[in-house]
């Protein structure tokens, strides 16, 4: 089956192209079917390939497939090739699996929307690009997927194009991530120039051979790649686009801005870990960025009233955990968390979508309340998702993955301990902010009458994801609880092993922090509460630390100002001056051309007199 690997990204692409060509001609039912089925088929194929891969692993756990030679010029060559190894396998399964569930959800969620076919065309395009990103065997193809998902994100954030605010959010997302992408692009240039290859595996091999640990060039390359990663993964300092991206349809938020695209940065760093291992400074920065982001986002999430923005900040925060894990070298843990996060965050977004679709797209949590009885399906799935997000000990997938990260940090020396502390504070915050949302939304007094049943296309994904959010963590269980290492065994050929921690202290502390957060949330928000007062502190966290304000002042406004002021191109005025001077001289000189014969004769005479004078006198 492995030889059909190329079909995995191609199937969604075919779906996308079919939908684009058929735009306006396909019925809603047909469009939804094409959209969901193309991803579903890709998922089935991916799982079949995975089964084959696990039962009968290829040599070195790597399966390489070259589709065609892309370019070969001036000593630089790139193939359009796919590479299946455990890392990309995990990513591929998450993308196609979660992606299919979200597509299924969306077929019902988006019903009746204008541009239904376009929605699925873009969603399929996104899935195809994301699959290319994770399956690419060289940087150029990776970058193609990388930009492709950015495009998909742009198109889908701005899906409801009639509202200019959506367009602004979409452009912001694209441009902010593009800043990171440009860093990545420069990283590619650096790697290609110095290592002479675009193939990721070869480049990593050359790098370890030719660059010593801590060499400036390796550090620079790692930092440039990191720039790309923080852009895509919405980490400091390029995190500002993600909360705004929530204006897109909720399935989009679930798929792109929670489960898959935003984790591309994590994937990139994991994929190029060899380079980061050569650059300890960059790796430490990854951890610090992760720690800082998870705290910033955690606090910010507490100051939000919009359910999707709460989830957006929690996504930033959770990806911060993954970065933290990468920074301390807990590679498996990062990927583990990536996977479980995809499950529970998709679940959270989809259940949030299920709620808002019954509330006429009202997203303010203070206008909800008491929904637990009205919308039980949404309630239970949101509750399970929240529990997993808050890492409720033992019974959720989030607990195991977060525990893996924190124990990895605990083992990582002094800097690791500091990051661990940040992680524990973050765990506390997570419990607090998400259960704040749970209590406000589902308990307390009801606002208006809400009802409605969900079709199977909504309930099935919620059910499957709920199960995964609970049980998905059992593939990797720490030593104290039974020591299951399915995932790290699988990833062993591609990612360096993590130190095992048998100390139970960090685990207990982290669990306590999470429970404390939940308890505190229950204490404050069990009873109906008022909308929080707009204190300066609240405003500060509501604006997520004022980064938007800062960037507006420092970057956006000066550029806009320059563009507006100079829209007539001051260089042209230089040429205008030449033209003006010519005209002015013309105005003067034309007076001599007054049409009078005698005047001309006089001119002739003066000229003759002068000429003869010159001839005579000189």
């Amino acid at each position, binding site marked *: 089956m492995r030889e059909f690997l190329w079909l995995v990204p191609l199937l969604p692409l075919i779906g996308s192209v079919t939908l684009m060509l058929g735009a306006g001609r396909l019925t809603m039912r047909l469009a939804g079917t094409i959209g969901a089925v193309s991803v579903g088929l890709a998922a089935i194929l991916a799982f079949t390939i995975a089964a084959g891969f696990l039962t009968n692993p290829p040599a070195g756990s790597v399966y390489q497939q070259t589709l065609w*030679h892309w370019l070969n010029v001036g000593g630089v060559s790139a193939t359009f090739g796919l590479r299946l190894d455990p890392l990309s396998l995990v990513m591929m399964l998450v993308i196609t699996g979660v992606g299919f569930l979200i597509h299924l959800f969306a077929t019902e969620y988006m019903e009746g929307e204008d541009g239904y076919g376009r929605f699925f065309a873009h969603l399929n395009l996104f899935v195809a690009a994301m699959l290319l990103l994770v399956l690419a065997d060289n940087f150029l193809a990776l970058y193609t997927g990388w930009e492709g998902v950015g495009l998909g994100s742009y198109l889908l954030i701005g899906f409801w194009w009639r509202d200019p605010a959506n367009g602004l959010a979409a452009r912001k997302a694209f441009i902010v991530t593009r800043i990171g992408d440009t860093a990545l692009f420069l990283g590619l240039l650096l790697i290609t120039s110095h290592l002479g290859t675009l193939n990721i595996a070869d480049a990593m091999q050359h790098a370890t051979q030719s660059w010593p640990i801590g060499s400036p060039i390796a550090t620079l390359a790692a930092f440039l790649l990191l720039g790309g990663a923080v852009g895509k993964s919405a980490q400091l300092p390029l995190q500002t686009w993600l909360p705004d991206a929530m204006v897109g349809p909720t399935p989009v938020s679930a798929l792109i801005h929670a489960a898959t695209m935003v984790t591309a940065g994590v994937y990139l760093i994991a994929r190029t870990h060899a380079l980061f291992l050569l650059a300890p400074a960059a790796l430490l920065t990854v951890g610090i960025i992760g720690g800082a982001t998870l705290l910033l986002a955690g606090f910010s999430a507490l100051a939000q009233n919009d359910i999707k923005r709460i989830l957006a900040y929690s996504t930033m925060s959770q990806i911060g955990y993954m970065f933290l894990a990468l920074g301390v070298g807990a590679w498996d843990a990062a990927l583990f968390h990536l996977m479980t996060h995809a499950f529970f965050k998709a679940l959270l977004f989809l259940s949030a979508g299920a709620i808002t679709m019954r509330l006429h797209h009202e997203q303010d949590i203070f206008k909800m309340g008491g929904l637990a009885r009205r919308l039980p399906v949404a309630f239970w799935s949101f509750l399970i998702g929240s529990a997993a997000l808050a890492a409720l000990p033992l019974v959720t997938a989030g607990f195991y993955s977060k525990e893996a990260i924190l124990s990895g940090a605990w083992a990582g020396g002094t800097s690791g301990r500091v990051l661990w502390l940040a992680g524990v504070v973050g765990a506390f915050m997570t419990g607090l902010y998400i259960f704040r949302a749970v209590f406000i939304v589902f308990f307390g007094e009801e606002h208006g009458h809400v009802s409605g049943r969900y079709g199977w296309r909504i309930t099935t994904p919620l059910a499957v994801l709920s199960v995964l959010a609970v049980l998905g963590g059992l593939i990797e269980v720490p030593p104290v609880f039974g020591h299951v290492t399915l995932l790290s065994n699988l990833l062993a050929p591609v990612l360096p092993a993590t130190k095992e921690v048998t100390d139970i202290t960090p685990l207990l502390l982290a669990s306590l922090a999470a429970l404390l957060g939940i308890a505190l949330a229950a204490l404050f928000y069990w009873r109906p509460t008022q909308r929080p007062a707009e204190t300066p502190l609240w405003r500060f966290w509501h604006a997520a630390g004022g980064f938007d304000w800062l960037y507006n002042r420092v970057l956006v406004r000066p550029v806009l100002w320059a563009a507006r002021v100079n*829209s007539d191109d001051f260089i042209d005025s*230089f040429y205008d001056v030449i033209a003006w001077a010519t005209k002015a001289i013309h105005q003067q000189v034309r007076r001599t051309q007054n049409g009078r014969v005698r005047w001309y004769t006089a001119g002739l005479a003066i000229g003759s007199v002068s000429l003869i004078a010159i001839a005579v006198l000189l």
Partner: protein
Amino acid sequence: MTLVWLLLIPGIGGAVAWMAGGRHPNLPRRIALAVLAIDFIIALSLIGPAMSSAIPAGHAAWIASFERPWIPQLGISFELYLDGLSLVLILLTIALGFISVVISWTEITDRVGLFHANLLWSVTGVIGVFLALDLFLFFFFWELMLVPMYFLIALWGHEHRFYAAIKFFIFTQGSGLLMLVAILVLVFVHQQTTGHFTFDYLALLGTKMNPTMAFWLMLGFFIAFAVKLPAVPFHTWLPDAHTAAPTAGSVLLAGILLKTGAYGLIRFVVPLFPDAAHAFAPYAMTLGVIGILYAALLAYGQNDMKRLVAYSSVSHMGFVLLGVFAWNTLALQGVVIQMLAHGVSTGALFILVGALQERIHTRDMRQMGGLWGSIPHLSAFGMVFAIASLGLPGLGNFIGEFLILLGSFQVGVPLTVIAAIGLVAGAAYALLLVQRAFHGNAAPHDETAAKPCDLTAPHLLVMAGLFLALLGLGLYPQPVFDQVAAGLAVVQHDGTPSTGPTTQFAEATP
């Protein structure tokens, strides 16, 4: 002889189209299509490896040649040579010419015969520029392509067309004069050192002269080509010319005429004056980078859609300038791809703006918005090509920019880093165009006016074809690389400074 036919067919076709214009307006259109199709087939037949025999040593890249004495007393000959570089650009020229005819079918209804004559003659001039190796002949074609273009703008243009046409003419003509002076001085210098009076490019290669003289001559050529490219600060004619020109004029201007500037830089400036050009390279590359960013900023500030696209064109040509003066295989191959991709994507954008203007009678983006609802196909293609022009991987522009920057990275890291900011800037203006024109609320006046009709079948076919071409360039550019490789290798060989290997050049970068 094939090369002569390549020139004669559109040249004579233009005259025939003119005469046929009096009989029926569709006749010149059909004639122009037929002529360009035949020319395209002839050009296609030339694709292939270089000739091995009967070519001077060291110049084994020529695919075809034609040489006859013209004014032997002055050392001028009718000398046409074709290598892969010229061939690729000629194919682009003819293809875009063909498309220009198709998209002018409904737009141009006045003096149809003369319009197509001018269009075909302009194409003829450009093909001549790409073929001529005698400097006199080159200059002849260089001027020849301007005149029909002037008339295209002045006679069939939009508001301010005379202003724009004259500005265009003065800029290109004035810079052409500098080149003529440089050509003549070069010929005289060559005569003084060798006693041989000739305008033959191949003979003039490697003329010995003192560095100051070489620098000034190089500058004369450089300015002529930089104006045509156009490079900042010589770019100000372009937005005006584009805004005023009819759609076909814009397509030809952006798609083809600008390429002659880049071609001239590659073919003449560097090989004829290797040392001077390499000493000048850091400054030229800096100009390129300034152009990328400055034009992007300008594009962002425009309300007129066509001006936005025009400035984006200037920005893209900044990459070309950067790539040419990086002067290594990667960058030059990138320049070729960038030229082709830019010709296609910007041409397509101009076609769309023209189609839009035909439908809603404005190019002012303040009066647009929400067009996606009324004309989805046009809007979708607008978005596709806007995204292509911001350099999305998988489409041709990306390959061009990637190779150019990879090439310039070997030469000057700081410049490359600054140039890369252009990728962000490109995204900013391209998406702004999409937002202001196609997304957002429908402009108020749309409610009362009749609903504009979407793209018609010929336009859709053209758009689809252009998109597929971009996709092809983006996903499988290797055939282009292979076709131009030999030609570029020779040019590069000629353009290597005598003082040492190219590594010295790297150190000269600021």
